[in-house]
């Protein structure tokens, strides 16, 4: 178990290093005077002149050789000094804190909803495999998976926010604002996970130990609960890890579409405005969350199956 944590810790450091390096390269490759942009972010564009830009240049040491700047950049990163955004001059960590809360709310809601959909649906499909429900769910899942997630969001907006008027179109603040974005995300996640649940349940139901247990005299239900769940839990939870990628990517898209002020929206917005410190901050946060949740999943899988049979 310690090995898992150590391994993920190294991965976290690699994430920080790669994000830091990429954003540093981005910083240097942008056209125009970086000192000017930073000064303008602090004082407003109307108020900036070359004197202010020079002051910023001296303050941040933007004239040192590249290697020194790179090391300084990484050093700042290690000390969690993420700088200030170029758009408003506010500290990046402060912005991230605001955004993180919103993103976590959306992500957890989406995961919960997708679990509520996928688990019962998958199990039912496996119990009545090859039946009408199974086929219908296969078709629906294929259809949903062939769309970019923002298309699902768009269709939901058109149907429920516009035509029926049940939910607000975009923004945040009340519980109603949360529903459409989380449902859109949940649907795109559940489309994959319900088939995974179905397949693992199916395998369990038709496995040797299951049959044996039935022969022993236990009812189907007892067998399922006593033997089946734990065995099928492992691939399902592992699949959650893969789902995570879809979740993070979906968050960027859905937050953009619904103007949900989370980290994904922050990243897209920062890239759009070439706000390099913010790009670094949001990409780093997303990456670290990803590693953190993967660690949790690894630990849960280990607890469920100490044999660690999976690759």
């Amino acid at each position, binding site marked *: 178990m310690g090995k898992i944590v150590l391994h993920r810790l190294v991965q976290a450091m690699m994430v920080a290093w790669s994000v830091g390096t990429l954003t540093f390269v981005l910083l240097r490759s942008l*056209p*125009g*005077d970086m000192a*000017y*942009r930073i000064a*303008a972010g602090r*004082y*407003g*564009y*109307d*108020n*900036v*002149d*070359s004197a202010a830009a020079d002051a910023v240049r001296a303050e941040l040491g933007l004239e040192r050789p590249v290697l020194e700047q790179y090391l300084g950049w990484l050093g700042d990163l290690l000390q969690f000094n993420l700088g200030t955004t170029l*758009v*408003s*001059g*506010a500290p990046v960590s402060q912005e991230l804190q605001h955004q993180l809360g919103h993103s976590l709310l959306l992500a957890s*809601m989406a995961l*919960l909803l997708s679990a*509520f959909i996928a688990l*019962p649906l998958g199990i039912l499909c496996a119990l009545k495999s090859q039946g009408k429900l199974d086929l219908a769910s296969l078709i629906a899942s294929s259809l949903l998976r062939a769309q970019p997630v923002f298309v699902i969001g768009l269709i939901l*907006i058109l149907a429920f*926010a*516009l035509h029926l*008027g049940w939910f*607000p*179109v*975009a*923004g945040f*603040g*009340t*519980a*109603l*604002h*949360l529903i459409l974005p989380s449902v859109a995300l949940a649907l795109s996640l559940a489309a994959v996970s319900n088939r995974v649940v179905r397949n693992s349940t199916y395998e369990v139901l038709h496995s040797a130990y299951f049959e044996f247990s039935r022969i022993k005299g236990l009812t189907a239900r007892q067998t399922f*609960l*006593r033997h089946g*769940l734990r065995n099928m839990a492992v691939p399902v939870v592992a699949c959650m890890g893969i789902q995570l990628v879809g979740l993070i990517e979906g968050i960027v898209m859905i937050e953009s*579409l619904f*103007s949900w*002020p989370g980290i994904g929206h922050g990243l897209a917005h920062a890239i*759009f*405005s*070439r706000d390099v410190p913010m790009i670094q901050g949001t990409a780093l946060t997303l990456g670290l969350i990803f590693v953190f949740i993967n660690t949790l999943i690894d630990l849960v899988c280990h607890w469920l199956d100490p044999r660690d049979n999976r690759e």
Partner: protein
Amino acid sequence: MRARLIFRRHLPRQYGHMMVMLLVAGLFTGCHSEDPKKTLTIGGPFEFTSLDPAKDGYIYTRMQLTETLLDVDAQGALRPSLAKNWTVSEDRLSWQFELRDDVIFHDGTPLDADTVIKSLGVARSKPGPLNKAPVTAIAATGTHRVEIELSAPYNPLGAVLAHYSTQILSPTAYAADGTVTSLVGSGPYRLSQYAPPHKLHVRRNDQYWGPPARIEQARYLTGHRAESRALQARSGQADIIYTLDAPSLKSLSSADNLNVHSELIPRTILLKLNSGHPFLNDVRARQALSLALDRTGIAASILRVPGSEANQLVPPSLRDWHLDALAPAEQDPTQARRLLAELGWKPGTSGVLLRDGKPFRLRLITYADRPELPVIATAIQAQLAEIGVAVEVEITNSSAIPSGHQDGSLEMALIARNFGIIADPLGVMLTDFGAGGGDWGAMNWSQPEVHRLLAELGAEHRRHEYLQKAQRVAQLLADELPLVPVTFYTQQIAVNKQVKGFRFDPFERSYHIAEMELED
């Protein structure tokens, strides 16, 4: 083991319980103390990130949180606001303002000469319209009298004092170094929730010196995507939505819960050119670009406002600077190609013009805050391709334009310039076309006659001469084309039918919330 079994047996029921609990919890956490019926919701594309009046002050005056010394009416004439009257001395080097004595800021501080001097002093210390004015001193000549002394006569001073950057804040709003730490103004509304960059809530100020507002609460929401804003208007989520995009107009006009207002404002969509660029430094090159544009098509098919083509920079509403007799702009690609051929450009193999082995390639930057700009940029790209100019369109942040101007990297930019940003257009003209050009004005373009005339106009008080000189400047700008006009701007606003008394400010200084009423 047994406990786990029992848990699992009741799983479906427990599922259900959890779900209900979560839903209920979610609904409660979302509850606001706001009564949605009595809150006016306004949506627009602009974000606000700081309390500094020089940066985002326009949002605070529009939401009527703060006020300026003077106001302007719909025709641009000066009106009293925090200053109840004003006089200009004989030699026109001194302006005296008599302040109202019944104004109280939102924190209870009364307005007096010292508070005004503090605010104006901070505004003057930052580059802006007040800083550009030839002001030598701002002093108190009484508890409620302020005198501004100039080194030279300056006509636009009154309009400058109506500009949002000179808004008057309570002295407690400033920190020791002059930065604004809280938004304490004197307007009919006070700040109740500040959530940059998206949300701003305001509440009625019951101690306002003027007529009391009828709507108790209002809020401003930033909506980045134009489609979302249109959808918010349709669904009733927002009562007033500014800067609608052209495609939504048809569907919104037929919606039965709102009215669409189309208002021509003194804003022009134009191409800012780097007149120092080797491809653009000859006036014939700039004229060729102008001749290639299909303004009629853009106005009719893209903006859906036929007739808004612009043949000059200043719109008709700013009468003094508008050349009524100027011929409409024609699209003449043949003439354009001829002009470019005169300058030595020859058609290359891929259709792009070549000169000394260099292709005629330019980078056009624009921003998406105004939804029509990227669309027009794509159209212009195709129209210039027809005459052999290859344009690369880059949709970026509006801050790229001042920064591109300052570091000289800007080649072409498509912007929507507000010539009415200071109610007296001379202020904008000086900023954009004075010596050295301006961030949103001419770049690397110098015309001594224009600079001289603009400087003279600041002091010119004879009506006839003023008109003559202004028209001459307009003519020179139309001939030399440091900026190429495309179309005039029509502000499209969706107003819910529940809103009574909606009024639009062509100078975009105020949303006039205090005059509106919400019907149930």
